Structure formats: structure tokens, C-alpha cells
């Protein structure tokens, strides 16, 4: 049922696919590196989780999405947004809290999204977006849309009650969804062995009579092949499945964590040897699909792209403070509904002259 985590990709990709995948991984890598730097320059606030090292798991799966499919992810979502095609400038602008950001500066690093591209968010409560993603699959099913949902989350989310309830609902209701565990082997400083009674996470699928499998999450082709196959099953046979992609984060949990207390230098090093981007590059050169020069060229391009994104984001404006109360409610009638709330408490008094109210 599961593949050995080390199996080499059998499929040799066409040059175009190869370029697309490699370039996106490179773009994410460079974007994350510069993001880290921007954070240290205090242009980014709050929590900031980098996905350096996990590019293959993100890109391989998202590349298998088709028009109309839906995507949900965790707060480690910068690469996710880039992978769906959100403009790097709009992603960086969100990290900077600018009005031109993908969430107009309301969401920040953990809550990126791109509704036109069907990316329904980076979410901050571990495990909680699984039921929501399951509900979006229910909506596709309700409307007989031939699409599927890809829901990505970390290994730590597997131990939450939400994981259990979501997968059981998807199983008993035959929902078109693929749950992808991006297993980077730690939830903050806690290893999978410490937190999971069954550390082979893909095996959890059996509890829901669901197909489960594990692939090498640092092998972009293996991830893509598996995601594509499982998404097809979801679209065509309306069956859910669980895909575990085993990978590693080179950085700490967030920029505030060095990531060294709970991981040995040897362990970190052994994974650096399996850097998904280097690996894929070497593979492509070996098979003569892309030249080393082309790859260098690619890195130069993405570096410029990220630099331009930063410049554009820096130039963008912050949201207008007067819009603070916009979008709390979406119903056009809400102001009317709240009109009689009157004085006596902050809410509903914004039109009055009370200086301590924004």
C-alpha cells in the first residue's frame, strides 16, 4: 500500500513540466530566504513559518490540481500561495500587511489565500481546517462538480480530534478530497514518535476504510504522481484518500525557533543531503532534460522576481485605518441591523464623536 520513502521516480517528465516544477521550487526557496531576511528587518510581524526544505511536497501536489479544484493549507503557506500562482508581490505585500496583499493585509503570513485561484486559505488552528475542507468537498459533491479538494496539513494535525472527525465524515459520505500530511517529522519541537501512537501516519487511513499511502516528500515527481492519481480517484470515483509526503524543514518551526534543541546536527545534515531542489536538478541534468546552465539561469530569474516582489510590496500602501470595521459582516444590511445598538459600549458607535473609538 505504501511506497518505500526512498523509491526513485520512475516517470521521466517532459522538459516543460520539469522546468515548471523546478522553477516553482526555486522561486519558493528564494522567496522564503528573502522572507526570513525581511522578518529580521522587522518588515514582517507575528508568527512566520518558512517551508524551506518542503518545496517538493507543496509543489508536487499542487501541480496536480486542475481548474475548479479547491486547496486548503496550514499556516506554513507562503509556498502554497506561490504554487497556486498568486503574484509574489501580492504574497510579500500580505506579509508586510499592505492593502495590495492577497488578504488586503488582514491575514498576514498564516492566512494567505487566493479565492479566484481556489486557494481557500492558510489556517492557524492546527487541524481545524480539515472539517472545513471536507465541507468544501461536500459543496462540490452537492453541485455535482467534477472537481476535488486537496487539503494539506502537518504531521501534528493528525492527533487532533478534527482530523478524526473530518476523515470519518469524508469516508462515510464519499467525499472527493485528498488529505495530504506534509510530514516534516516535527510539530514544533515534538517528533512524530512522541506524539503519535502510530507513527506511520499513512496507516491512519485504514481506520476510515480509506486508501492511504506514503511517498518521498522530497521527490517532486513522486509527490506529483501520487497526488495526481489520488485526485483523479477523488474526481472520478468520488472517493477520499490520505497521502503522506515525508519531508523535513531545514529551518526552525518559525523564524523565532532555531530548530536545533530537538534535532541533532547530523539529522539536519542528512536531510540537507536530500534537498528536494538540488536533487531534482541533478536528476534532470543527468537525464539531459535541463542543462546546468539553464538551472543557474532559473535561479537568477527567480531571485530577480523575488527582489521585484519585495520592492513592489515595500512601495505599496498600508490599509486605510478607517476600514477597520469593514468586512466584519458580509451582509449588505449589517449597518442597518446594528444601527440601534446605540451607545453604552464601543461597538456601533463609530459614527459618534468618541475619540477613543476608531
Amino acid at each position, binding site marked *: 500500500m505504501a511506497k518505500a520513502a526512498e523509491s526513485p521516480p520512475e516517470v521521466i517528465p517532459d522538459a516543460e513540466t520539469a522546468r515548471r516544477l523546478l522553477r516553482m521550487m526555486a522561486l519558493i526557496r528564494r522567496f522564503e530566504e528573502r522572507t526570513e531576511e525581511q522578518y529580521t528587518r522587522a518588515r514582517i510581524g507575528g508568527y512566520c513559518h518558512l517551508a524551506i526544505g518542503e518545496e517538493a511536497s507543496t509543489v508536487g501536489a499542487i501541480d496536480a490540481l486542475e481548474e475548479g479544484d479547491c486547496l486548503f493549507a496550514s499556516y506554513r503557506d507562503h509556498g502554497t500561495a506561490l504554487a497556486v500562482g498568486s503574484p509574489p508581490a501580492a504574497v510579500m505585500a500580505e506579509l508586510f500587511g499592505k492593502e495590495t496583499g492577497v488578504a488586503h493585509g488582514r491575514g498576514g503570513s498564516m492566512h494567505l489565500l487566493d479565492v479566484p485561484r481556489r486557494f*481557500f486559505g492558510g489556517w492557524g488552528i492546527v487541524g481545524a481546517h480539515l472539517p472545513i475542507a471536507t465541507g468544501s468537498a*461536500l459543496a462540490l459533491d452537492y453541485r455535482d462538480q467534477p472537481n476535488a479538494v486537496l487539503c494539506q496539513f502537518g504531521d501534528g494535525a493528525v492527533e487532533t*480530534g478534527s482530523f478524526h472527525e473530518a476523515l470519518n*465524515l469524508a469516508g462515510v459520505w464519499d467525499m472527493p478530497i485528498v488529505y495530504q500530511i506534509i510530514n516534516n517529522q516535527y510539530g514544533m519541537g515534538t517528533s512524530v514518535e512522541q506524539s503519535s501512537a502510530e507513527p506511520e501516519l499513512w496507516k491512519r487511513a485504514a481506520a476510515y476504510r480509506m486508501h492511504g499511502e506514503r511517498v518521498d516528500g522530497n521527490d517532486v515527481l513522486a509527490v506529483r504522481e501520487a497526488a495526481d492519481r489520488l485526485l483523479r480517484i477523488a474526481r472520478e470515483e468520488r472517493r477520499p484518500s490520505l497521502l503522506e509526503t515525508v519531508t523535513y524543514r531545514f529551518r526552525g518551526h518559525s523564524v523565532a525557533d532555531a530548530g536545533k534543541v530537538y534535532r541533532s546536527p547530523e539529522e539536519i545534515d542528512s536531510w540537507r543531503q536530500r534537498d528536494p531542489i538540488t536533487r531534482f536538478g541533478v536528476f534532470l541534468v543527468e537525464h539531459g532534460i535541463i542543462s546546468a546552465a539553464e538551472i543557474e539561469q532559473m535561479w537568477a530569474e527567480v531571485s530577480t522576481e523575488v527582489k521585484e516582489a519585495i520592492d513592489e510590496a515595500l512601495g505599496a500602501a498600508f490599509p486605510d485605518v478607517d476600514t477597520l470595521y469593514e*468586512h466584519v459582516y*458580509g451582509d449588505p444590511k449589517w449597518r442597518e441591523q446594528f444601527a440601534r445598538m*446605540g*451607545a*453604552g459600549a464601543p461597538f456601533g458607535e463609530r459614527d459618534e464623536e468618541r475619540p477613543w473609538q476608531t
Partner: protein
Amino acid sequence: MADVTYREALRRALDEELERDPDVFLMGEEIGRFEGSYKVTAGLWKKYGAKRVRETPISEEGFVGAGIGAAMLGLRPVVEIMTINFILVAMDQIVNHAAKIHYMFGGTVKVPMVIRAPGGAGAQLTAQHSQSLEAWFAGVPGLKVVAPATPADAYGMLKTAIRDEDPVLFYENLVMYNVTGELPADPEALVPFGEAKVVREGTDLTIVAHSYTVQRALRVADSLSRDGVEVEVVDLRSLRPLDAETVAESVRKTNRALVAEEGWSTYGVGAELAARIHFLCFDDLDYPVERVGGAEVPMPYSKPLELAALPLESKIEAAARSILTQCGVL
């Protein structure tokens, strides 16, 4: 039009909205074959089938979350939580998600979802099944909370809730399901949010209440009028948005106020109302606002203890009399 029960009013509203809009669907435990633990969805599963009336496992966190996801894609789920006591396992989905998504998404996604949940006590259901938690939700930006007290309002407000673009917690009350009343002749006569209603006019004291307590207040008013005291009863109907103006107008007239609720009043609905009445009617009040709520204990099973814990008419009336006596009206 003949009187119908509160339960039937809800059932009709659901039926008519399911009929009207194919995007409306119901989700919850036992709402299909079993016709609802309290029979509110009677007949709907037979009429609309399993797709429109979806039975769920015991997974509140899961199916409330599923409702949110479905709403984000444009459907209009009406989720039934069998009783509000079980909503505690789904709090994160409602407070951290349903309430915040529209804002977090910078306005690019809406969550047009209704969560129906009955609360209340009085049938010896004991501590884990006798709570009134609506005040918590009423304090959450992004949520709307309504608590109709009559069949007509239940009917009109449930339709408003289903057609609203925002997540709405629709608070019911177990004891109220069998209460009867008239329904409006016009099925499109929806009841708006944010408008409290003076359900009994009076001059001597204003009793502010919501949900089932409104009916207790009306009985107290009747009893007091026999002593020549006229109590005005204001039915809040909606807790967020809250109509403070109608309450204030009433108190400016009566100069006295009592807030009654079934839940615990410390940090409860009564606290917010008392604070606002004092703020808005500072110069009008003859006497501080009194509050009557359920005794602040986990609800005991034994009947005499439960009766002692409930905010019955006798307690509300005693509080009203004490205010009126202090003010020399009685």
C-alpha cells in the same frame, strides 16, 4: 390563521426555505429518519431526501466545520446542534472560524450559515444538558445571535437568518417548542435582526428578556397588573445586533428596569443590558437595574433543587415587587 407551536413554526420556515432555494440544506444528528431529537425537522427528510437533509455522525466539530466549508463555496447550510450544550465541542469552528473568515479573507469569501441550537432548562436534564450559553456568542464580532420568543418570530427570524450572508447562531429553547401562537399570513413577512419589541406596554417598570424568559415576564406582568402595577415587557429578540434604543426608550418612560434571563447573569446577557441601561438612562432611573437569572450552580437533577435553581415567575415577580416597593409604587 390557526395557532401553531414554536416547533411547527420552525419546521415550516425550514420547509419553505428548502423549497425556495436549492442551495439551502440541513445538517445535523438525527434530523432525518429520526425526524430530529425534538422533531423540528419532522417530514423534511422524506420530502427532500438525504442530500438536502443530511444526517451526521456524532461529530459536531466535524459537521459544523463542514457547514462552514460548504458555506464558503456558496451553499446555505442550516446546521442543527441537538442542544446548545453540545456546541462546546464545536466552539473553535464557530468562534475561530465561522465568525472570522469573512474578515480574515479581506471580504473575498462569505459564510452564509445558520446554526440552530436549543438551550434552556426545566426538564431535569441535569448539569450537562441545561445550559444557556448564548451570551458568549453574542460577544463575538462576526457572529449574529438571535433568540426569538414566539412562533411568529421563530418563523420570521429563521427565514431572515437563512437569507442572511453572515453566520447566525439561532438560539431556541427546549421548553418553548410546544408554546403556540399565530403565524403571519404573509410567508414573506420576514422579521429583521436588531429590532427589539415591546410585547406589553406598561408605565411602572420595564422587564427586559429574551427567548423563553419573555413568556415568564409576560405572566409576571399579568400578575402584577392585578395589583394595579403596569409592567412593560421588552423582548430583545436579537442579542447581536442588540437593539439598545428600544430598551432605553422604554426605561426612559418607566424609570425602572429589571433584566431577566434563564442563564447565569454574572457575566451574562443581563450584565450587558444593565450596563447599557444605566449608561443610556443615567438620569432617568429611579432605582438601579436588577438582574434575575438562573442560580449560579451546575444544574442539579432533583426536582426541588432544579426548581430552586430556575428563574421562575415567582423569582422575577419578587424582584419586580422589591423594586416597586423600594420606589414606593407598591
